[in-house]
């Protein structure tokens, strides 16, 4: 006659008794496994009532509760630190360790803006040119001469077209030297080009140069056709109508390069799944965490017991049948589990980086508010002699 082996009143844990064995080598876990088993059995009514669970059920629940705790804490840490973790190596285990704030990720994100603005970033700007012919305004960009020949078959995005008015500085005629551009060229040859215009800086204030340059630019703007272009599809139309042959240079990127810049570097944190958080070591979990685990273990045990007792809606007994409390146990377990998870998440959220900063701010504000109410001391050491002096004069 087979009798179901119900909880015998004691248990003896040995490594390998849990389904996964994540914590089996932890001596504190081994010690607590049997204690938790006894505690849960007592909470379920043993020895007054039989508990239709075996020690392996208790162990499995204990392991699951510890896993759940570790999982919740790690999820919180990953959520709180993901911005700092992305792009960092996956090799090191960050469980239980502080993550120092840095701007790495922010800068990495900013570099994408830099790419578009032409001030850095991940995508290299390349150069191309087009031969401009006298009198021809419209050019097909398919005929570009590329810096990298293979780019001719790729989709490109033009970032800059070098087609502007020549700088006023090179059209500056120094009246005091009287040689026009010749003096500029001469100075360039001596390596003094940066001191342009000419040698007159010794005699003229800087604002005189600025006024002249401004006058040249105004002249170009008002009296001449402006240098500009229109880019429509593959067509480039340049203004004014070219009066001589020259080259127009332009900067471009390939869309392929831009896409390539978004791919992650190997062995670095990319998302939730490879953030380097391992399971917590049970013995390092503090008493508050262990208490949570005990309670969650009990809830899981109730759930298992409820499922066992609820497999059949009624149990036959001689000349009758009884209904067990399986449904009640399952309901209790679900409620308790939800409450425990909520409590843990609230506690974790309360210590998030953002929450801590807000708390510190509030604390410092409150301290300042308190200090403001402290009476300011009045220094009367010097006041008394002055009063005495004034009194003496009055007399």
């Amino acid at each position: 006659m087979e009798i179901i082996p119900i909880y015998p009143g004691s248990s003896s844990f040995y490594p390998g008794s849990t389904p996964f064995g994540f914590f089996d080598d932890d001596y504190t876990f081994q010690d607590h496994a049997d204690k938790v088993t006894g505690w849960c059995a007592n909470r379920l009514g043993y020895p007054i009532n039989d508990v239709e669970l075996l020690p392996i059920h208790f162990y499995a629940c204990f392991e699951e509760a510890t896993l759940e705790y570790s999982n919740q804490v790690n999820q919180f840490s990953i959520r709180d630190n993901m911005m700092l973790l992305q792009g960092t190596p996956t090799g090191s285990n960050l469980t239980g360790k502080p993550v120092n704030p840095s701007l790495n990720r922010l800068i990495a994100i900013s570099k994408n803006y830099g790419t578009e603005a032409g001030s850095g970033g991940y995508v290299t700007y390349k150069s191309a040119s087009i031969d401009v012919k006298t009198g021809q305004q419209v050019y097909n960009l398919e005929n570009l001469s590329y810096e990298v020949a293979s780019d001719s078959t790729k989709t490109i995005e033009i970032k800059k077209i070098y087609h502007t008015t020549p700088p006023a500085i090179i059209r500056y005629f120094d009246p005091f030297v009287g040689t026009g551009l010749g003096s500029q060229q001469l100075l360039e040859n001596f390596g003094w080009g940066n001191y342009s215009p000419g040698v007159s800086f010794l005699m003229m204030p800087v604002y005189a140069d600025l006024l002249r340059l401004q006058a040249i630019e105004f002249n170009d703007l008002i009296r001449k056709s402006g240098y500009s272009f229109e880019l429509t599809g593959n067509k480039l139309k340049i203004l004014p109508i070219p009066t001589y042959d020259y080259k127009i240079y332009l900067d471009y990127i390939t869309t392929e390069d831009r896409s390539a810049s978004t791919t992650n570097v190997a062995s670095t944190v990319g998302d939730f799944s490879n953030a380097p958080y391992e399971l917590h070591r049970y013995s390092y979990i503090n008493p508050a965490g262990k208490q949570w685990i005990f309670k969650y273990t009990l809830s899981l045990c109730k759930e298992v017991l409820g499922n066992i007792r609820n497999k059949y809606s009624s149990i036959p007994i001689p000349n009758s049948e009884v209904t067990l409390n399986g449904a009640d146990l399952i309901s209790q377990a679900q409620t308790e589990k939800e409450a425990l998870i909520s409590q843990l998440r609230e506690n974790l959220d309360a210590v998030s980086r953002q929450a801590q900063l807000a708390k510190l701010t509030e604390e410092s504000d409150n301290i300042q508010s308190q200090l403001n109410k402290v009476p300011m001391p009045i220094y009367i050491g010097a006041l008394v002699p002055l009063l005495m002096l004034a009194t003496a004069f009055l007399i």
Partner: protein
Amino acid sequence: MALYGSKRDVALFRSLNKELLHRIIDTEVLAYKLNLSSTQVNIYDESDTKVYNEPILIYSLITLDEQQWTSEDYGSDVTQTSTFAFLRDDLIEKDFRPEIGDVIEYRSRFFEIDSLIENQTVVGKDPDSSFTGPNFGYNVSIICQAHMTRQSKLNIVKTRFGNSVSINNSTLPNNL
């Protein structure tokens, strides 16, 4: 092969039944087996002096019906019927198979078994006779319908007896 009612499930039922009957309800009766070989019968296979084996203490779920009182010419009389439901596993352990004519003692009253019902199974299967084999089903109980009988008829307890003054260290016969 059935999905429900396997040996493992039955083991749970058995465990729950034993907990309920032995530890929670905990009502026991004495069951007396009629010893046919020792009972003297007349030519009609009738006997006024039935002999019973030593009683066996066994757990039972008892349903006592109301006592019925009647007044006859020779005085008042009481009758009572009762149902004794036994866990079949208990009976097997005690090696007691109730039969019609056996006597059950409960609260100093004696009930003679009139009929037996052995029809309570789990998932409709009795492992002893199921065509699907012995691994499924559970024969839960044996239910005995019984009526209260007179103690003087049973020869189990001494009634109306006394000591003889003339005969030293001897008692008068039972059931005079």
